[in-house]
């Protein structure tokens, strides 16, 4: 069960990050933004948008597989690790600034997920699944 969670959440994180980075790249290449068919056509003429679509579908399938066993409350909280990965990727790929406040937030998120991982060891087996 431990391996199921590690692989599941790693996959979810990868698909979510792929989705957001591809969206940003597709949006950048389709500038300027306008509410027109031409803008839509520009967005879909770049291969990046299809990476975003793959990210969406992959994340959905992964999430539904995780939810088969994972309690929704803790799992939903843990899925926010994406906030941290996207922060790192936006710094690395797009050279966006990261503020000290954001680093404090990222540390809180990671600390929370470590707590959730420990909690899983203690009580994961006791969750009641409705019939």
């Amino acid at each position, binding site marked *: 069960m431990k391996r199921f969670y590690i692989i599941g959440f790693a996959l979810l994180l990868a698909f979510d990050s792929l989705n957001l980075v591809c969206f940003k790249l597709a949006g950048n290449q389709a500038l300027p933004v306008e509410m027109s068919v031409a803008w839509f056509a520009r967005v879909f003429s770049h291969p990046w948008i299809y990476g975003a679509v793959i990210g969406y579908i992959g994340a959905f399938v992964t999430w539904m597989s995780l939810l088969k066993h994972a309690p*929704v409350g803790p799992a939903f*909280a843990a899925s926010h690790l994406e906030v941290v990965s996207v922060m790192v990727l936006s710094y690395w790929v797009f050279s966006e600034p990261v503020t000290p406040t954001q680093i404090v937030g990222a540390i809180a998120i990671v600390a929370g997920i470590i707590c959730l991982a420990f909690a899983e060891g203690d009580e994961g087996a006791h969750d009641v699944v409705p019939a």
Partner: protein
Amino acid sequence: MQGLAFALWLANLLLDTGGQLSFKAAATDKLAGDGLARWKYMLARPWIWVGIACYVFEFVVWVAFLSLVPLSKGVLLGSINIIAIMIAGRFLFHERLSPMRVTGILLVAVGVAIVGAGG
């Protein structure tokens, strides 16, 4: 927060919570089986579609909400959804909330709020 922004905030909270609970209901259906058969079964039942519908509406509500408030305030809202879904999971799916789990979930919620505020 203005009246309309508050209404949109509330709608986002309800749709996000409703969507996640619907997905959980779809995913834990014991008759669903495994692999491809599980997907065929889930896609033929209402819950997964209720969840997807919630997400589509949530997307529209979210875009409208963000057009009314600064992004940092908007991201704060995401952290409230985490707590709402924790409480809903407790009551609807009998998920145990040990001190360790609650601490973890609250830390994530606070972290998301801080990242939003610092952006």
